[in-house]
C-alpha cells in the first residue's frame, strides 16, 4: 500500500522536513458478534506542522473513525488492527493508557462535534476549563488556574470572561459552547487540533464566525488542524489540503482548490457535482440527470409564477406562553405577522436559522397548532374555520414530510402499511386497490417494490425519506410541506432526493413549501424565497433576486456565510 502514501508537500514554502502526523496504512475494525467489521482499510495521510487538512466524506466513510483512532478515543469495540500513526516520531497506535494522557489534550487538542452534549451540565464552565488546564499540567490549582481560565475564554472570543466562568452550560448558546470547547481544545497550545464536524450543529452565520476565529487562533500559534466534515465547500474554504474518504479508504487527496476544480476519482466528481453550496441553478424537472443543472430555462419559472396561489398566508401570528417558573408565564411571539402566498406548481422556500419560527409556520399551516391570529387559506378555504369532515378533506390536499428520517416512520409499521396508512385513514379503495397504489408509489419514489414487507430500520436515511414522500403522496395531494426534509441527509443522497422532488413536482404539478436553514439548497429547488428572522419575514422575493441582489443586511450575511461560495469551480 505504499502507493497510497501521500508525499510531503513540496513547493508550498513550508518546512519540508518531517511531517507532524504521518499515518501509514492504518486499519481499524469494530468487534461485533459476527467478527471484526473493518472501518478503515489502509488509510495513509500526512499533516505538516501548521498545515490545515480536511477529511471529507459521507456518513459511514470512516472519517470520524480516523480522527478518533489518532487520539485513541475509539469506542470500546473499535481496534487498530494494523498500521502506524506517527506523531512527532512517536507511534500513537502502539501507545495507550497513561502515556497517552500526556499526548491527548497536551499535544493534540480535540473539538468534538456536538457542543450541546460535550459540556457537563452540572459543573460550571470555569470548573471544566480549569480541570483541563490542571490535567494537562498547564496550571496549578489556585489563583494561577483561574487567571489562565479567563485567558482561555477571552481567547475563545467570549466577552465578560470573569462572569462567564461562573455560569453553567445551559446559560450558553450553541455557538458560545463551541467557543468554550475550542478554547479548551487549544488551551495547552497543542501542535495538532482535531475538529470533528465542529460547526455542523450550528447556524451558518455562527459557523462562519467560529471558523474564522478558529483559523485566527491556530494561525497565530502555528497549530496544525485536521478538520472532519461532510461539507465539501467548507472543507475547501478552510483547508489547504483535502482528503476524500469513501468506504474506509482515501480515494483522493491533494490541494483543496485543485481537487474541486479538477477532481479525478469518480467519487470525488460525484461529490463536487452534488455539493449544493457550489452549484448554482435550480434543478429542472423531467431531467433526472444532474447535467440538467447547467441548462437554464428562464421561461419555465416565469410562467409558473403567474398561476393562481394555492396557499395564502395572511398576517399569521402565533404566541406561545412560556413558563418562567413560579406559576408565571411570559408570552413569546414565535410567528409574527407572516404573510405570503404560493402559486400552484411552484416551490417557495422559507429560510431561517434555528428559532426563527419557520417550523412553527409549517405546523400552523398543517393545523397541528392553532394560530393566535391571522389566516391560512388553502384551495380557497380558511383552515381555521373548518373542522370535522371538511378538515379531513383539507388534509388530503396537503401533506408534510419531516426532517428526521429516523423518527418520521413508525418502526413497527412495515413499508406497505406505512404508505397505505393515508389510504386506510381516508377509506380510499379496496384492499387490493390500496396494494396496487402502494406499489405504484414505491415505483414513483424509485424504490424496489420488494420493500413492501420490510421495516424502516432496514433502510438508510435517504430511503426512509423516500418512503415518507411516498406516504405524503398517497392521497394525491396538491401541496407538500417539506420541513427540513433533506437536512439530515448526506450530500449525494440529498441531491438525489432533491432531484426526485423536482421530478415529482413537474410530473404531478405539486406545490411545495420548502422549509430549510440551508440557503445553498434553496437555490437548487425554489422559485421564491422568504427569509425569516425572529418570527418575521425580513425579505421575500424570487430566488434569483435574493441570491443576486439581496436587499437586507441579514440576507447578505446569510448568503456570505454559505461555505465555499467564493470558490470558482471552473468546470
Amino acid at each position: 500500500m505504499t502507493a497510497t502514501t501521500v508525499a510531503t508537500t513540496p513547493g508550498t514554502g513550508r518546512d519540508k522536513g518531517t511531517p507532524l502526523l504521518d499515518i501509514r496504512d492504518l486499519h481499524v475494525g469494530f468487534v461485533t458478534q459476527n467478527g471484526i467489521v473493518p472501518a478503515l482499510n489502509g488509510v495513509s495521510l500526512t499533516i505538516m506542522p501548521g498545515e490545515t487538512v480536511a477529511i471529507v466524506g459521507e456518513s459511514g466513510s470512516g472519517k470520524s473513525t480516523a480522527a478518533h483512532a489518532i487520539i485513541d478515543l475509539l469506542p470500546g469495540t473499535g481496534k487498530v488492527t494494523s498500521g502506524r500513526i506517527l506523531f512527532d516520531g512517536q507511534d500513537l497506535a502502539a501507545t495507550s493508557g497513561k502515556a497517552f494522557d500526556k499526548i491527548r489534550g497536551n499535544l493534540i487538542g480535540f473539538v468534538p462535534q456536538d457542543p450541546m452534549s460535550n459540556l457537563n451540565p452540572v459543573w460550571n464552565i470555569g470548573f471544566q476549563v480549569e480541570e483541563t488546564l490542571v490535567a494537562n499540567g498547564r496550571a496549578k490549582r489556585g489563583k494561577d488556574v483561574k487567571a489562565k481560565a479567563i485567558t482561555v475564554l477571552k481567547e475563545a472570543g467570549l466577552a465578560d470572561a470573569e462572569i462567564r466562568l461562573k455560569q453553567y452550560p445551559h446559560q450558553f448558546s450553541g455557538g458560545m459552547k463551541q467557543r468554550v470547547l475550542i478554547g479548551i481544545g487549544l488551551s495547552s497550545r497543542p501542535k495538532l487540533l482535531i475538529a470533528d464536524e465542529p460547526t455542523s450543529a450550528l447556524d451558518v452565520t455562527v459557523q462562519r464566525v467560529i471558523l474564522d476565529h478558529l483559523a485566527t487562533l491556530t494561525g497565530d500559534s502555528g497549530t496544525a488542524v485536521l478538520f472532519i466534515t461532510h461539507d465539501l465547500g467548507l472543507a475547501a474554504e478552510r483547508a489547504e489540503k483535502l482528503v476524500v474518504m469513501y468506504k474506509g479508504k482515501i480515494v483522493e487527496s491533494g490541494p483543496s482548490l485543485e481537487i474541486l476544480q479538477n477532481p479525478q476519482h469518480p467519487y470525488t466528481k460525484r461529490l463536487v457535482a452534488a455539493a449544493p453550496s457550489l452549484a448554482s441553478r435550480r434543478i429542472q424537472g423531467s431531467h433526472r440527470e444532474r447535467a440538467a443543472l447547467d441548462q437554464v430555462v428562464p421561461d419555465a419559472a416565469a410562467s409558473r409564477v403567474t398561476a393562481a396561489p394555492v396557499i395564502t398566508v395572511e398576517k399569521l401570528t402565533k404566541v406561545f406562553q412560556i413558563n418562567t417558573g413560579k406559576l408565571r408565564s411570559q408570552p413569546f411571539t414565535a410567528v409574527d405577522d407572516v404573510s405570503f402566498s404560493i402559486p400552484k406548481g411552484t416551490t417557495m422556500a422559507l429560510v431561517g436559522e434555528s428559532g426563527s419560527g419557520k417550523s412553527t409556520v409549517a405546523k400552523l399551516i398543517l393545523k397541528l397548532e392553532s394560530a393566535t391570529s391571522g389566516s391560512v387559506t388553502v384551495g380557497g378555504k380558511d383552515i381555521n374555520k373548518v373542522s370535522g369532515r371538511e378538515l379531513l378533506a383539507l388534509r388530503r390536499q396537503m401533506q408534510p414530510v419531516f426532517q428526521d428520517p429516523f423518527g418520521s416512520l413508525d418502526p413497527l409499521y412495515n413499508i406497505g402499511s406505512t404508505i397505505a396508512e393515508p389510504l386506510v385513514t381516508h377509506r380510499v379503495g379496496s384492499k387490493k386497490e390500496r396494494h396496487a397504489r402502494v406499489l405504484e408509489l414505491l415505483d414513483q419514489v424509485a424504490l424496489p417494490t420488494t420493500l413492501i414487507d420490510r421495516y424502516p430500520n432496514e433502510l438508510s436515511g435517504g430511503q426512509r425519506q423516500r418512503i415518507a414522500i411516498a406516504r405524503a403522496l398517497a392521497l394525491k395531494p396538491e401541496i407538500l410541506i417539506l420541513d427540513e426534509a433533506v437536512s439530515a441527509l448526506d450530500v449525494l443522497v440529498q441531491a438525489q432526493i432533491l432531484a426526485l422532488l423536482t421530478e415529482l413536482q413537474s410530473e404531478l404539478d405539486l406545490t411545495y413549501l420548502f422549509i430549510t436553514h440551508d440557503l445553498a439548497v434553496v437555490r437548487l429547488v425554489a422559485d421564491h424565497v422568504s427569509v425569516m428572522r425572529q418570527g418575521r419575514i425580513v425579505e421575500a422575493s424570487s430566488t434569483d433576486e435574493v441570491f443576486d441582489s439581496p436587499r437586507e443586511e441579514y440576507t447578505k450575511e446569510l448568503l456570505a456565510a454559505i461555505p465555499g461560495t467564493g470558490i470558482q469551480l471552473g468546470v
Partner: protein
Amino acid sequence: MPSNAPLSPTHFVAPLDETPLVAVDKVQVAAKPSNLYLDAWRDMRRRPLFYVSGVIVLLVIVVALFPTLFTQLDPRACALSFSNQGPSAGHPLGYTKQGCDVYARIIFGTRTSLSVGIIVTLLVTVIGIIIGALSGYYGRWIDAVLSRIGDIFFAIPYILAAIVIMSVVAREARSILVLSLAIGIFAWPSTARVLRGQILSVKNSDFVMSAAALGVSHFRILLRHVLPNSIAPVIVITTIGLAGAIVAEATLSFLGIGLPPDVMSWGKDISQAQGDLRNNPMTLIYPSIALSVAVLSFILMGEVLRDALDPKARARR
C-alpha cells in the same frame, strides 16, 4: 478541458478498482424483515436462558392446568398415622405433620400460585396501561390528576396494603379472586409510571405528527402508533411482576390471612411446616423450593425479555 490540466505532485488518486463505486443510496436489506419485536424474538431464541426459563414456566403452567397428570394421590386424604413420616414408595417427599402427602400438596398448590399471579398481573397491566397511556398521551390536567392518584397508591407498599385489606375481609369471603384484587389494587402504579415515561418520549416523534397531519384521530394514534412503540418495557415488568405476585400470595398465606382453609397453597404449607422445622425440615423445604423455582423462572424470563427488547443491550453483547 480542465481535466487535462497537469496535477500537482501531491495530488493522489486511488485506483478505481480499490474502492469500486456503488450506486448512491443503494437498497441493501437482509434476508428477512426485521423490526424490534421480530429481532427480539430471533435474539431470544439464541439464548440458552430463554429455553431454561421457558421450559420451567411451561412446566408450571402444565402442572397448574393438569395436576392429576403428575400425581394420582388426593392431597386432602390425610391420615395422622403418617404424621411427619419420611419418604416411602409412592410418596417420594414424605408426609406433613397432618399426614398429608407433601408431593401431592405441592403439585396441587401450583394452580393457586399461578392463578393469583395471572389475575394480579392482568389487573395490574390493564389498570397500569389505561392510566399510564391516558396520562402520558393526553397530558395536562388528565396527567396531573392520574399521576397524583398513582402517587398516592405508590406511597403505600402493596404488600402492606394487601395485609390491611385481607384482615378486613371476612374469613368466609376470602378467595383467590379477593386475594388477587387485594394485591393488584395497589401494585399498578409502577406499570403506569413506566408506560407514561415511554409514551412521553414516543408521542413527540415525527411519525405521530405525520399521522396527525393525515387526520388520524388522537385515540387511534395512541392505540396504533404510540402504544405499540411504548409497550416493550411493560412486557418486561409484567413478567417480573408475575413472580412478585406469586411471592405476595405466599407471603399472605404464610401470615394466615390469605386464602380459605380448603385452598392449597405453597405459602400455607410453608407456614404450617415451620413448627416442625427441627424434626422434619423437609416439609418446609420442599414447598419453598417449588416457590423459588417458579418465581425464579418468571424472573429469568423477564431478564431474557428485557435484554432482547433493548436493542442497546443487544449491541453491547
